[in-house]
Protein backbone atom coordinates (compact mmCIF):
# COMPACT_ATOMS: atom_id res chain seq x y z
CA UNK A 1 0.00 0.00 0.00
CA UNK A 2 1.50 3.37 -0.98
CA UNK A 3 2.64 5.66 1.78
CA UNK A 4 3.93 8.65 -0.19
CA UNK A 5 1.32 11.28 -0.84
CA UNK A 6 1.20 14.56 -2.68
CA UNK A 7 -1.15 15.74 0.06
CA UNK A 8 0.35 17.40 3.16
CA UNK A 9 -1.37 17.92 6.49
CA UNK A 10 -1.67 21.55 7.50
CA UNK A 11 -2.59 20.64 11.06
CA UNK A 12 -0.69 17.86 12.82
CA UNK A 13 -2.20 18.48 16.27
CA UNK A 14 -5.08 15.98 16.16
CA UNK A 15 -4.75 12.84 18.27
CA UNK A 16 -3.66 9.75 16.31
CA UNK A 17 -6.38 7.36 15.15
CA UNK A 18 -5.61 3.86 13.89
CA UNK A 19 -7.89 2.19 11.36
CA UNK A 20 -7.38 -0.19 8.46
CA UNK A 21 -7.77 -0.22 4.71
CA UNK A 22 -7.99 -3.67 3.10
CA UNK A 23 -6.60 -5.15 6.30
CA UNK A 24 -3.53 -2.88 6.43
CA UNK A 25 -3.16 -0.50 9.37
CA UNK A 26 -3.33 3.19 8.47
CA UNK A 27 -2.55 6.13 10.76
CA UNK A 28 -4.97 9.03 10.70
CA UNK A 29 -5.73 12.03 12.91
CA UNK A 30 -8.81 12.73 14.93
CA UNK A 31 -11.20 14.80 12.83
CA UNK A 32 -10.05 13.28 9.53
CA UNK A 33 -12.67 12.00 7.20
CA UNK A 34 -11.95 8.59 5.73
CA UNK A 35 -11.26 10.34 2.41
CA UNK A 36 -8.77 12.77 3.96
CA UNK A 37 -7.01 9.91 5.74
CA UNK A 38 -6.84 7.92 2.50
CA UNK A 39 -5.31 10.84 0.59
CA UNK A 40 -2.86 11.57 3.40
CA UNK A 41 -1.81 7.91 3.27
CA UNK A 42 -1.30 8.13 -0.50
CA UNK A 43 -4.32 6.01 -1.42
CA UNK A 44 -5.81 7.96 -4.28
CA UNK A 45 -8.29 5.38 -5.61
CA UNK A 46 -10.90 3.75 -3.41
CA UNK A 47 -12.73 1.83 -6.10
CA UNK A 48 -13.00 0.74 -9.71
CA UNK A 49 -16.16 1.96 -11.40
CA UNK A 50 -19.00 -0.45 -12.24
CA UNK A 51 -19.20 1.09 -15.72
CA UNK A 52 -15.66 1.11 -17.14
CA UNK A 53 -13.53 -0.38 -14.36
CA UNK A 54 -11.46 2.82 -14.24
CA UNK A 55 -10.03 3.82 -10.85
CA UNK A 56 -11.84 6.54 -8.88
CA UNK A 57 -11.04 8.31 -5.64
CA UNK A 58 -11.95 11.30 -3.46
CA UNK A 59 -12.51 14.37 -5.61
CA UNK A 60 -14.96 16.98 -4.35
CA UNK A 61 -14.43 16.24 -0.61
CA UNK A 62 -17.86 17.70 0.14
CA UNK A 63 -20.39 14.95 -0.50
CA UNK A 64 -21.41 15.92 -4.00
CA UNK A 65 -19.53 13.79 -6.52
CA UNK A 66 -19.86 10.27 -5.07
CA UNK A 67 -16.47 9.34 -6.49
CA UNK A 68 -14.98 8.48 -3.07
CA UNK A 69 -17.24 5.47 -2.40
CA UNK A 70 -15.68 2.70 -0.31
CA UNK A 71 -16.92 -0.09 1.91
CA UNK A 72 -16.86 0.88 5.60
CA UNK A 73 -17.39 -1.72 8.33
CA UNK A 74 -19.15 -4.02 5.87
CA UNK A 75 -21.40 -1.34 4.34
CA UNK A 76 -20.65 -0.81 0.63
CA UNK A 77 -20.81 2.51 -1.29
CA UNK A 78 -20.19 4.77 1.72
CA UNK A 79 -19.05 8.31 0.97
CA UNK A 80 -15.55 8.41 2.43
CA UNK A 81 -15.51 12.21 2.43
CA UNK A 82 -18.62 12.38 4.63
CA UNK A 83 -17.55 9.74 7.16
CA UNK A 84 -15.27 10.68 10.09
CA UNK A 85 -12.57 8.09 10.67
CA UNK A 86 -12.94 6.09 13.90
CA UNK A 87 -10.53 3.86 15.79
CA UNK A 88 -10.56 0.31 14.45
CA UNK A 89 -12.71 1.20 11.43
CA UNK A 90 -12.38 -1.34 8.63
CA UNK A 91 -12.37 0.21 5.17
CA UNK A 92 -12.27 -1.83 1.99
CA UNK A 93 -11.73 -0.63 -1.53
CA UNK A 94 -14.41 -1.70 -4.01
CA UNK A 95 -14.27 -3.30 -7.45
CA UNK A 96 -17.33 -2.74 -9.61
CA UNK A 97 -20.93 -2.63 -8.41
CA UNK A 98 -21.75 -3.59 -4.86
CA UNK A 99 -23.12 -7.09 -4.33
CA UNK A 100 -26.82 -7.52 -3.70
CA UNK A 101 -27.75 -7.20 -0.05
CA UNK A 102 -29.56 -10.07 1.63
CA UNK A 103 -33.19 -9.20 2.22
CA UNK A 104 -33.80 -8.67 5.93
CA UNK A 105 -36.09 -11.24 7.52
CA UNK A 106 -38.80 -8.73 8.42
CA UNK A 107 -38.79 -6.84 5.12
CA UNK A 108 -41.70 -8.81 3.79
Amino acid at each position, binding site marked *: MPRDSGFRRLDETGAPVAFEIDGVAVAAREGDTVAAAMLAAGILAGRQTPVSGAPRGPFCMMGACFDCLVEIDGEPNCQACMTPVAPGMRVRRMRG*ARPLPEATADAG
Partner: protein
Amino acid sequence: MIGGGLVGMAVGWGLLRLGRQVTVFDEGDRAIRASRGNFGLIWVQGKGAGMPDYARWTRLSARLWPSLAEELSAASGVRPELSQPGGMTLFLSEAEAAAGVAKLEGLRDALGGDYPFEYLGANAARALVPEIGPEVVGAIHCPMDGHVNPLYLLRALHTAFARAGGRLVNGAAVEAVEPLGGGFRIRCAGGSEWRAGQVVLAAGLGNARLAPMVGLDAPVRPERGQVLVTEKVRPFLRLPLARVRQVGEGAVQIGDSREDAGFDDGTSTEVMAHLARRAIRYFPLLERVRLVRAWGALRVMSPDGNPIYERSRECPGASVINCHSGVTLAAAHALVLPGWLTLERGGDAPGYMEVFGAERFRLQATG
Protein backbone atom coordinates in the same frame (compact mmCIF):
# COMPACT_ATOMS: atom_id res chain seq x y z
CA MET B 1 -40.15 21.87 -35.60
CA ILE B 2 -41.15 23.56 -32.37
CA GLY B 3 -39.59 21.46 -29.60
CA GLY B 4 -36.25 19.66 -29.27
CA GLY B 5 -37.27 16.84 -26.95
CA LEU B 6 -37.63 13.17 -27.81
CA VAL B 7 -40.69 13.79 -29.98
CA GLY B 8 -39.35 16.76 -31.91
CA MET B 9 -35.92 15.21 -32.47
CA ALA B 10 -37.28 11.81 -33.56
CA VAL B 11 -39.67 13.37 -36.06
CA GLY B 12 -37.08 15.97 -37.09
CA TRP B 13 -34.47 13.31 -37.83
CA GLY B 14 -37.12 11.31 -39.68
CA LEU B 15 -37.97 14.33 -41.84
CA LEU B 16 -34.29 14.78 -42.70
CA ARG B 17 -34.24 11.15 -43.81
CA LEU B 18 -37.03 12.01 -46.25
CA GLY B 19 -34.83 14.74 -47.69
CA ARG B 20 -36.52 17.66 -45.98
CA GLN B 21 -34.70 20.67 -44.59
CA VAL B 22 -35.45 20.87 -40.87
CA THR B 23 -34.93 23.57 -38.26
CA VAL B 24 -35.71 22.70 -34.63
CA PHE B 25 -36.49 25.43 -32.10
CA ASP B 26 -35.60 24.38 -28.58
CA GLU B 27 -36.69 26.60 -25.73
CA GLY B 28 -33.69 26.38 -23.41
CA ASP B 29 -32.91 25.54 -19.82
CA ARG B 30 -36.03 27.06 -18.33
CA ALA B 31 -38.25 24.78 -20.42
CA ILE B 32 -40.35 22.04 -18.85
CA ARG B 33 -38.56 19.02 -20.26
CA ALA B 34 -40.32 15.68 -20.05
CA SER B 35 -37.54 14.09 -22.12
CA ARG B 36 -34.96 14.70 -19.38
CA GLY B 37 -37.03 13.00 -16.71
CA ASN B 38 -38.28 10.00 -18.63
CA PHE B 39 -38.24 6.54 -17.06
CA GLY B 40 -36.96 4.86 -20.24
CA LEU B 41 -39.55 2.16 -20.85
CA ILE B 42 -40.70 0.87 -24.21
CA TRP B 43 -44.05 -0.09 -22.78
CA VAL B 44 -46.90 -1.73 -24.64
CA GLN B 45 -48.93 -3.63 -22.05
CA GLY B 46 -52.06 -1.84 -20.93
CA LYS B 47 -51.89 1.05 -23.38
CA GLY B 48 -54.87 1.70 -25.65
CA ALA B 49 -57.75 0.59 -23.47
CA GLY B 50 -60.66 2.50 -25.02
CA MET B 51 -58.66 3.28 -28.15
CA PRO B 52 -57.39 0.07 -29.78
CA ASP B 53 -55.61 2.01 -32.53
CA TYR B 54 -53.33 3.47 -29.86
CA ALA B 55 -52.45 -0.09 -28.87
CA ARG B 56 -51.73 -0.86 -32.55
CA TRP B 57 -49.61 2.27 -32.96
CA THR B 58 -47.68 1.46 -29.77
CA ARG B 59 -47.02 -2.10 -30.92
CA LEU B 60 -45.94 -0.89 -34.34
CA SER B 61 -43.37 1.35 -32.67
CA ALA B 62 -42.16 -1.45 -30.38
CA ARG B 63 -41.70 -3.68 -33.44
CA LEU B 64 -39.79 -0.93 -35.26
CA TRP B 65 -37.53 -0.19 -32.29
CA PRO B 66 -34.75 -2.63 -33.30
CA SER B 67 -34.54 -0.91 -36.71
CA LEU B 68 -34.48 2.50 -35.06
CA ALA B 69 -31.75 1.45 -32.62
CA GLU B 70 -29.63 0.04 -35.43
CA GLU B 71 -30.03 3.01 -37.77
CA LEU B 72 -29.65 5.56 -35.01
CA SER B 73 -26.52 3.93 -33.60
CA ALA B 74 -24.97 3.87 -37.07
CA ALA B 75 -25.96 7.47 -37.75
CA SER B 76 -24.88 8.89 -34.39
CA GLY B 77 -22.30 6.55 -32.87
CA VAL B 78 -24.44 6.55 -29.69
CA ARG B 79 -26.14 3.34 -28.64
CA PRO B 80 -29.42 3.82 -26.75
CA GLU B 81 -28.97 0.53 -24.80
CA LEU B 82 -32.07 -1.07 -26.30
CA SER B 83 -33.27 -4.22 -24.57
CA GLN B 84 -36.64 -5.83 -25.30
CA PRO B 85 -36.82 -8.95 -23.14
CA GLY B 86 -40.50 -8.40 -22.32
CA GLY B 87 -41.79 -6.57 -19.27
CA MET B 88 -43.49 -7.58 -16.06
CA THR B 89 -46.13 -6.09 -13.83
CA LEU B 90 -46.09 -7.40 -10.26
CA PHE B 91 -49.24 -7.69 -8.15
CA LEU B 92 -49.45 -7.42 -4.37
CA SER B 93 -53.04 -8.66 -4.03
CA GLU B 94 -55.40 -11.01 -5.84
CA ALA B 95 -57.76 -8.10 -6.55
CA GLU B 96 -54.98 -6.09 -8.15
CA ALA B 97 -53.97 -9.11 -10.23
CA ALA B 98 -57.54 -9.72 -11.39
CA ALA B 99 -57.94 -6.09 -12.45
CA GLY B 100 -54.63 -6.18 -14.32
CA VAL B 101 -55.51 -9.36 -16.17
CA ALA B 102 -59.02 -8.10 -16.99
CA LYS B 103 -57.57 -4.94 -18.52
CA LEU B 104 -55.24 -6.87 -20.83
CA GLU B 105 -57.96 -9.39 -21.71
CA GLY B 106 -60.15 -6.46 -22.72
CA LEU B 107 -57.38 -5.15 -24.94
CA ARG B 108 -56.84 -8.59 -26.43
CA ASP B 109 -60.55 -8.85 -27.29
CA ALA B 110 -60.58 -5.35 -28.79
CA LEU B 111 -57.61 -6.33 -30.96
CA GLY B 112 -59.16 -9.53 -32.24
CA GLY B 113 -57.08 -11.85 -30.06
CA ASP B 114 -53.69 -10.60 -31.22
CA TYR B 115 -52.19 -9.35 -27.96
CA PRO B 116 -49.61 -11.60 -26.35
CA PHE B 117 -49.29 -11.70 -22.56
CA GLU B 118 -49.16 -14.33 -19.88
CA TYR B 119 -50.26 -14.43 -16.25
CA LEU B 120 -47.60 -15.91 -13.99
CA GLY B 121 -48.24 -17.19 -10.51
CA ALA B 122 -45.90 -16.13 -7.75
CA ASN B 123 -43.61 -19.12 -8.21
CA ALA B 124 -43.40 -18.69 -11.97
CA ALA B 125 -42.59 -15.00 -11.51
CA ARG B 126 -39.87 -15.89 -8.97
CA ALA B 127 -38.46 -18.40 -11.41
CA LEU B 128 -37.83 -15.46 -13.77
CA VAL B 129 -36.56 -13.07 -11.07
CA PRO B 130 -35.65 -14.86 -7.82
CA GLU B 131 -35.38 -11.58 -5.87
CA ILE B 132 -39.15 -11.00 -6.07
CA GLY B 133 -40.49 -10.77 -2.51
CA PRO B 134 -42.99 -12.96 -0.65
CA GLU B 135 -45.81 -10.38 -0.80
CA VAL B 136 -46.05 -10.67 -4.60
CA VAL B 137 -49.00 -12.91 -5.53
CA GLY B 138 -48.48 -12.98 -9.29
CA ALA B 139 -47.30 -11.13 -12.35
CA ILE B 140 -48.12 -10.39 -15.95
CA HIS B 141 -45.38 -10.98 -18.47
CA CYS B 142 -45.75 -9.26 -21.81
CA PRO B 143 -43.14 -10.07 -24.50
CA MET B 144 -43.68 -6.77 -26.33
CA ASP B 145 -42.09 -4.59 -23.64
CA GLY B 146 -38.54 -3.35 -23.17
CA HIS B 147 -36.42 -0.40 -22.15
CA VAL B 148 -33.65 1.95 -23.22
CA ASN B 149 -31.48 4.62 -21.69
CA PRO B 150 -33.63 7.68 -22.50
CA LEU B 151 -30.76 10.15 -22.17
CA TYR B 152 -28.60 8.22 -24.64
CA LEU B 153 -31.63 8.10 -26.94
CA LEU B 154 -32.00 11.88 -26.78
CA ARG B 155 -28.28 12.35 -27.36
CA ALA B 156 -28.31 9.89 -30.26
CA LEU B 157 -31.21 11.75 -31.89
CA HIS B 158 -29.51 15.12 -31.48
CA THR B 159 -26.23 13.80 -32.88
CA ALA B 160 -27.87 12.05 -35.83
CA PHE B 161 -29.97 15.15 -36.53
CA ALA B 162 -26.90 17.40 -36.61
CA ARG B 163 -24.89 14.96 -38.75
CA ALA B 164 -27.74 14.75 -41.26
CA GLY B 165 -27.64 18.51 -41.72
CA GLY B 166 -30.47 19.54 -39.40
CA ARG B 167 -30.33 22.95 -37.80
CA LEU B 168 -30.96 23.33 -34.08
CA VAL B 169 -31.76 26.77 -32.68
CA ASN B 170 -31.12 26.76 -28.95
CA GLY B 171 -32.63 29.16 -26.47
CA ALA B 172 -35.47 29.87 -28.88
CA ALA B 173 -38.71 30.31 -26.96
CA VAL B 174 -41.36 30.46 -29.67
CA GLU B 175 -43.89 33.16 -28.91
CA ALA B 176 -46.04 32.92 -32.00
CA VAL B 177 -46.61 30.84 -35.11
CA GLU B 178 -48.48 32.80 -37.78
CA PRO B 179 -49.80 31.63 -41.14
CA LEU B 180 -48.25 33.86 -43.77
CA GLY B 181 -48.32 33.64 -47.55
CA GLY B 182 -48.91 29.90 -47.77
CA GLY B 183 -46.25 29.23 -45.12
CA PHE B 184 -45.59 30.29 -41.56
CA ARG B 185 -43.76 32.97 -39.63
CA ILE B 186 -42.17 31.86 -36.35
CA ARG B 187 -41.58 34.63 -33.83
CA CYS B 188 -39.19 33.92 -30.95
CA ALA B 189 -38.70 35.76 -27.67
CA GLY B 190 -36.01 38.37 -28.20
CA GLY B 191 -37.43 39.37 -31.55
CA SER B 192 -35.96 36.91 -34.06
CA GLU B 193 -38.26 35.82 -36.87
CA TRP B 194 -38.11 32.78 -39.10
CA ARG B 195 -40.05 31.56 -42.12
CA ALA B 196 -41.04 27.97 -42.78
CA GLY B 197 -43.12 26.19 -45.40
CA GLN B 198 -44.45 23.74 -42.85
CA VAL B 199 -44.49 23.71 -39.08
CA VAL B 200 -44.79 20.85 -36.61
CA LEU B 201 -45.71 21.56 -33.00
CA ALA B 202 -43.84 19.15 -30.72
CA ALA B 203 -43.52 21.44 -27.74
CA GLY B 204 -45.09 19.12 -25.20
CA LEU B 205 -47.16 21.12 -22.72
CA GLY B 206 -46.28 24.25 -24.72
CA ASN B 207 -48.48 22.98 -27.53
CA ALA B 208 -51.60 23.99 -25.57
CA ARG B 209 -50.71 27.65 -26.19
CA LEU B 210 -49.31 27.28 -29.72
CA ALA B 211 -51.83 24.96 -31.37
CA PRO B 212 -54.76 27.44 -31.58
CA MET B 213 -52.49 29.83 -33.52
CA VAL B 214 -52.63 27.45 -36.51
CA GLY B 215 -56.17 26.13 -36.24
CA LEU B 216 -55.29 23.18 -34.02
CA ASP B 217 -56.10 22.04 -30.52
CA ALA B 218 -53.83 20.52 -27.88
CA PRO B 219 -55.75 20.34 -24.61
CA VAL B 220 -52.86 18.83 -22.65
CA ARG B 221 -52.15 19.12 -18.94
CA PRO B 222 -49.17 18.21 -16.77
CA GLU B 223 -49.19 15.01 -14.70
CA ARG B 224 -46.23 14.75 -12.38
CA GLY B 225 -44.26 11.57 -11.98
CA GLN B 226 -41.43 11.18 -9.49
CA VAL B 227 -38.44 8.92 -9.99
CA LEU B 228 -35.98 7.51 -7.46
CA VAL B 229 -32.55 6.18 -8.39
CA THR B 230 -30.39 3.91 -6.25
CA GLU B 231 -26.69 3.33 -6.06
CA LYS B 232 -25.37 0.89 -8.64
CA VAL B 233 -25.73 -2.76 -7.64
CA ARG B 234 -24.85 -6.00 -9.38
CA PRO B 235 -27.43 -6.88 -12.05
CA PHE B 236 -30.43 -8.85 -10.75
CA LEU B 237 -33.38 -7.51 -12.74
CA ARG B 238 -33.13 -8.63 -16.34
CA LEU B 239 -36.68 -7.56 -17.24
CA PRO B 240 -38.09 -4.06 -16.85
CA LEU B 241 -41.16 -3.56 -14.70
CA ALA B 242 -43.57 -0.68 -15.11
CA ARG B 243 -42.47 0.60 -11.69
CA VAL B 244 -38.93 -0.69 -11.22
CA ARG B 245 -36.13 -1.24 -13.68
CA GLN B 246 -32.41 -1.76 -13.40
CA VAL B 247 -30.46 0.28 -15.91
CA GLY B 248 -27.51 -1.04 -17.88
CA GLU B 249 -25.00 0.48 -15.48
CA GLY B 250 -26.58 -1.10 -12.39
CA ALA B 251 -28.67 1.63 -10.79
CA VAL B 252 -32.26 0.73 -9.93
CA GLN B 253 -34.90 3.23 -11.06
CA ILE B 254 -38.19 3.37 -9.17
CA GLY B 255 -41.19 5.31 -10.42
CA ASP B 256 -44.76 5.40 -11.69
CA SER B 257 -46.32 7.98 -9.38
CA ARG B 258 -49.10 10.16 -10.74
CA GLU B 259 -50.21 13.47 -9.28
CA ASP B 260 -51.56 16.82 -10.29
CA ALA B 261 -48.96 19.32 -9.13
CA GLY B 262 -49.53 21.98 -11.78
CA PHE B 263 -46.24 22.94 -13.42
CA ASP B 264 -44.16 22.09 -10.32
CA ASP B 265 -41.67 19.43 -11.44
CA GLY B 266 -40.12 18.97 -8.01
CA THR B 267 -40.34 16.07 -5.57
CA SER B 268 -42.24 15.45 -2.33
CA THR B 269 -41.30 13.31 0.66
CA GLU B 270 -44.71 11.59 0.78
CA VAL B 271 -44.57 10.38 -2.81
CA MET B 272 -40.91 9.37 -2.62
CA ALA B 273 -41.62 7.38 0.55
CA HIS B 274 -44.60 5.68 -1.12
CA LEU B 275 -42.51 4.73 -4.16
CA ALA B 276 -39.71 3.38 -1.97
CA ARG B 277 -42.05 1.37 0.26
CA ARG B 278 -43.79 -0.20 -2.72
CA ALA B 279 -40.50 -1.09 -4.40
CA ILE B 280 -39.32 -2.80 -1.19
CA ARG B 281 -42.49 -4.90 -1.18
CA TYR B 282 -41.66 -6.01 -4.73
CA PHE B 283 -37.96 -6.55 -3.98
CA PRO B 284 -37.15 -6.74 -0.25
CA LEU B 285 -33.41 -6.56 -0.94
CA LEU B 286 -33.91 -2.90 -1.94
CA GLU B 287 -34.46 -2.03 1.73
CA ARG B 288 -30.70 -2.01 2.15
CA VAL B 289 -29.84 -0.29 -1.12
CA ARG B 290 -29.16 3.44 -0.93
CA LEU B 291 -31.07 6.03 -2.91
CA VAL B 292 -28.78 8.59 -4.49
CA ARG B 293 -31.09 10.78 -6.56
CA ALA B 294 -34.71 11.70 -7.09
CA TRP B 295 -36.50 13.99 -9.48
CA GLY B 296 -39.90 14.95 -10.75
CA ALA B 297 -41.00 15.34 -14.35
CA LEU B 298 -44.26 16.28 -16.00
CA ARG B 299 -46.06 13.87 -18.31
CA VAL B 300 -47.89 15.50 -21.18
CA MET B 301 -51.45 14.19 -20.79
CA SER B 302 -54.37 14.63 -23.11
CA PRO B 303 -57.90 14.35 -21.64
CA ASP B 304 -58.13 10.62 -22.48
CA GLY B 305 -54.42 9.87 -22.00
CA ASN B 306 -54.00 8.92 -25.67
CA PRO B 307 -51.75 10.77 -28.10
CA ILE B 308 -52.71 13.60 -30.41
CA TYR B 309 -51.64 13.69 -34.05
CA GLU B 310 -53.43 16.14 -36.30
CA ARG B 311 -52.79 18.04 -39.51
CA SER B 312 -54.45 21.42 -39.59
CA ARG B 313 -57.28 21.84 -42.10
CA GLU B 314 -57.51 25.54 -41.39
CA CYS B 315 -53.77 26.14 -41.90
CA PRO B 316 -52.43 23.43 -44.24
CA GLY B 317 -48.81 22.61 -43.50
CA ALA B 318 -49.20 22.87 -39.73
CA SER B 319 -49.50 19.83 -37.53
CA VAL B 320 -49.44 18.94 -33.86
CA ILE B 321 -47.97 16.00 -31.94
CA ASN B 322 -48.55 15.24 -28.27
CA CYS B 323 -47.93 12.07 -26.32
CA HIS B 324 -46.66 10.91 -22.94
CA SER B 325 -44.55 8.11 -24.43
CA GLY B 326 -41.70 9.77 -26.26
CA VAL B 327 -39.50 6.71 -25.77
CA THR B 328 -41.98 3.98 -26.70
CA LEU B 329 -43.19 5.89 -29.74
CA ALA B 330 -39.76 7.12 -30.88
CA ALA B 331 -39.48 4.46 -33.59
CA ALA B 332 -42.90 5.25 -35.08
CA HIS B 333 -42.12 8.97 -34.79
CA ALA B 334 -38.83 8.66 -36.65
CA LEU B 335 -39.69 6.01 -39.22
CA VAL B 336 -43.44 6.31 -39.95
CA LEU B 337 -44.84 9.65 -38.87
CA PRO B 338 -42.71 11.95 -41.09
CA GLY B 339 -44.30 10.54 -44.25
CA TRP B 340 -47.77 11.07 -42.83
CA LEU B 341 -46.98 14.63 -41.74
CA THR B 342 -45.62 15.70 -45.11
CA LEU B 343 -48.28 13.81 -47.08
CA GLU B 344 -45.46 12.57 -49.28
CA ARG B 345 -45.46 8.99 -48.20
CA GLY B 346 -48.73 8.84 -46.38
CA GLY B 347 -49.24 5.37 -47.81
CA ASP B 348 -46.60 4.05 -45.43
CA ALA B 349 -48.54 5.20 -42.38
CA PRO B 350 -51.31 3.07 -40.92
CA GLY B 351 -54.81 3.92 -42.09
CA TYR B 352 -56.03 4.80 -38.61
CA MET B 353 -54.02 7.99 -37.99
CA GLU B 354 -57.13 10.21 -38.18
CA VAL B 355 -58.47 8.77 -34.91
CA PHE B 356 -55.69 10.60 -33.07
CA GLY B 357 -57.03 14.03 -34.03
CA ALA B 358 -57.88 16.37 -31.17
CA GLU B 359 -61.27 16.61 -32.83
CA ARG B 360 -62.33 13.77 -30.54
CA PHE B 361 -62.22 16.17 -27.56
CA ARG B 362 -64.19 18.87 -29.37
CA LEU B 363 -66.92 16.34 -30.25
CA GLN B 364 -67.05 15.20 -26.63
CA ALA B 365 -67.28 18.78 -25.44
CA THR B 366 -70.22 19.63 -27.65
CA GLY B 367 -71.94 16.27 -27.48
